């Protein structure tokens, strides 16, 4: 079976000369949920923007379910952007249309979906995140947690191969955080989750990778990785006060 995502030897430097990626290798199998951890400035966002061809031009290759990402090929990019659904950190950046339903329809409409099928896509995506009742509301009038869920729906409506979430739990209150986790767990889609929220990674992602200094520094089952204090400290990662991965795992899997 083809991997959902295959990144090989990816290098990238910004035009000002700062090097962000120095040879990233990462494979994510279909249906897997993987957390991408790393300190600020490790290159996480740069890597994410490579996955759908917004950034590119350095050495290395990316394949999404067997299709090569090539920023110079406009037609191919449209399909890549359907396959890679990125949920950005600030839902106000993602939700720009005047109503929730119109925003969810934006992606599939760009893919040429029209009429009844478009409506079906919108309904299905909003139902998947439990926001069907808010379809005609203005995004600004929703709570932050609701907006983040709608942002997930805007991407789900495109039927992506892999869902990429940038800090999905940031700024959420505990209840919204748990609700989002339940939704993400229920989705039958490959997930790559960029996060600083280590307990969230442990809860949702069986596997984690650490990106630091533009390279994958570690790749292991999340529980094992979070139990390695020296590794975490070396990459400026810290567990919340009083949090014990072993105890949490015991709670999750009795």
């Amino acid at each position, binding site marked *: 079976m083809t991997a959902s995502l295959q990144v090989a030897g990816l290098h990238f430097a910004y035009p000002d000369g700062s090097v962000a990626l120095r040879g990233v290798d990462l494979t994510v199998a279909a249906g897997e949920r993987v957390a991408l951890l790393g300190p600020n400035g490790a290159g996480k966002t740069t890597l994410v923007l490579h996955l*759908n061809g917004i950034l590119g031009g350095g050495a290395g290759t990316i394949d999404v379910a067997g299709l090569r990402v090539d920023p110079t090929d406009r037609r191919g990019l449209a399909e890549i952007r359907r396959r890679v*659904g990125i949920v950005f950190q600030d839902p106000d*950046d993602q939700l720009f249309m005047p109503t929730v339903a119109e925003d969810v329809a*934006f992606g599939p409409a760009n893919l040429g979906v029209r009429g009844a099928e478009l409506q079906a896509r919108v309904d299905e995506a909003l139902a998947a995140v439990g926001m069907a009742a808010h379809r005609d509301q203005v995004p600004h009038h929703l709570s932050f947690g609701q907006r983040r869920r709608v942002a997930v729906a805007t991407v789900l409506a495109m039927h992506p191969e892999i869902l990429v979430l940038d800090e999905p739990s940031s700024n959420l209150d505990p209840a919204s955080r748990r609700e989002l986790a339940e939704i993400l767990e229920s989705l039958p889609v490959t997930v790559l989750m960029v996060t600083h929220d280590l307990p969230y990674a442990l809860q949702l992602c069986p596997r984690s990778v650490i990106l630091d200094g533009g390279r994958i520094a570690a790749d292991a089952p999340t529980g094992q990785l979070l139990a390695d204090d020296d590794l975490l400290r070396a990459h400026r990662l810290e567990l919340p006060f009083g949090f014990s991965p072993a105890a949490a795992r015991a709670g999750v899997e009795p």
Partner: protein
Amino acid sequence: MGAGHAHPLHLDRDSLVHRLAAEVKIVAMLLFTIVVVVTPRTEFRAFAGYAALIVAVMVLARVPAGWLAKRATIELPFVLLAVALPFAGHGERVDWLGMSLSVDGLHGAWNIFAKGTLGVLASLLLAATTTMRDLILGLDRLHCPAVFTQIATFMLRYLDVLADDARRMRIARLARGYDPRFLWQVKAFAVGVGSLFLRAYERGERVYLAMVSRGYTGRLPRADAGPAPAAQWIAAATLPAASAGIALATVLT
């Protein structure tokens, strides 16, 4: 449409006029205003007729007169300008309450006042019966250039976000002992405007990235609603048709 489209000029009611498609109302309002503007200023009966039409639409749309009058005060600055005309005008003069007034200036003032008021009332009725969102969709269906409707769409969405940003920044300033008196206020206010601009600029950048990630290629998808039914066009056409009838009748007699 759904809740939350509230803008201060919109009156959320259900009426015959509210139910008309936006593009129909926009065209009717525009034609009515054109008829009003081209009517010679001395045809006083015609203006009385137009005012009656406006009142009829107001009643049909179930818009309270007081509500409309309060919002019509926006034209006051222009009317104040008109007040000066009778004093400043040249030519033949009449005496009224001991003041010498120019006849030409009086006509000019009346012209601004009557046409301005009718135009403002017609626009207010359009705004009162149509949500911002529907106005933009209506303009889009009238083939208004996409650049304008896209800008208006973004404005509609992000004006509130920006206002929130500005409010938070102001509260943060106040929280650090900032004393908002006029002269002291200016510098921090100006810096605040600058950083608000930068924030908006950066947000624009991020919004664009998020749009591109969802396959945006420079064109927003059109909302697929069918064209307004002919019955609506005919119903809305009564306003400009009646006003044109009044204009012709008064000019010819």
